[in-house]
């Protein structure tokens, strides 16, 4: 199924991705963000917070926004 994935970590690109049916948001995170901790991100599906075992649906919009972003001077 197709999802709109907005990754605000880095370039902030929004792209459509294909994922397997029945994938949970936790599984999706581990797939797209290997080695990262979920607690370091705001994870929103269709602009709403969801539990980790939420099953993703066709055309869902998944947004990952890091909670720790280093500024500069």
């Amino acid at each position, binding site marked *: 199924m197709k999802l709109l994935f907005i990754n*605000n*970590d880095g370039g902030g690109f929004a792209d459509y991705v294909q994922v397997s049916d029945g994938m949970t948001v936790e599984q999706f995170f581990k797939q797209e963000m290997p080695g990262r901790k979920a607690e370091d991100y705001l994870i*929103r599906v269709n*602009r709403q917070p969801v539990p980790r075992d939420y099953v993703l649906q066709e055309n869902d919009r998944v947004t990952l*926004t890091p909670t720790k*972003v280093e500024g*500069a*001077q």
Partner: protein
Amino acid sequence: MNDKELMHVANLIQEAMLQLRKGRYLECMRQLGLFTSRFSDLARDARKLGMALSHDWLVASEHTCKAISGHLTEIPYAVSKLQSLLDRRPREVPSLCAIVDELRSLRDEFDDVAFNAEEGALCVVTDPISLEGVYLGRFRIALYLEKSAELYHKTAYYVIAIDPHPTAKDEAVTHPHVSNEMLCEGDGAAAIRAALEEGRLCDFFTLVRSILTTYNPDSPYVALSDWEGVSCYDCGYVMDEESSYYCSLCDNAICDQCSRVCVDCGEVVCGSCAGLCEICERSLCPTCAKTTCIGCESVCCDSCLTDGLCPECKQQQENEDEEHEDEQTNEKPETDGAQTIRLGGRLARGGIQAQADHTAVQPDSVGQAAVSSGPIRG
């Protein structure tokens, strides 16, 4: 914001997004204009070079070549900037419905969301922020909708400290990564721009908040370790309050390098309040700096004064005294060298005789005698 206000703000945001889309093309035009002007400059300099060579003006030729080199070095930068603008994907302007959804999720994400109609700014307020034990307070993130249309060459938002706790070094730095209400986005720059271009307002504000709640010790305006403390009044060095001195006159804090100790009374003063002995150039407090030489009125410390005089005036006085003594010695009269005139007379040897050299008498007169010209002795 209630739903009616949400719709109104959503309309304004959509208009701003349309202007932003147009703004990208306007910025491309501007950059293209700058780029082509470089070629005009090169063409002009080429003509200059030709003219200089035709007159064998080699110095002028060298100057022109340097100018051409300057234009050439700027071209790659102009190309790069223009290319990055052209390469950006065209963004669809979000629908009104999508923008309203964004505003609703923004309301869920932040406790304080408001639209300042006077300034045309969508604002959110963060929770109080502390980084590594340093309290910084709450911040208002204000997105100016008109400025967002000029995103490509102006900042569209400001980060305003609501209850500022700026660093002691610089009151404009209210956060390690905020100076003069502008956030240095660092690693978040690309994501913030993409969020604004696509109208993902909630993503934009949460990214800014993420930067505000993260400390990057490698690149702050002011490090948190130097945040608090007292700033030296003279040099601006930030020091611990315990390490600071205080001027006894103006009460300003000063570091140990800038503090001055009065050589006469030992008081600590700052550079602005300190006076200076004009002879030995040691520091004096304002009170002791009132002591002056009675001769030339130079400010002097006690140890440089002798009988109230500075060394120069003292020397001058001694020289004058010596001269005066010399003058007095020269004016005394000489008794051994006084002139005496012999009158002659009965007691003189050989009877009364007139000294021929003193007389002016007429030989035939009676009753006249020679009278000497000397003093009359009684």
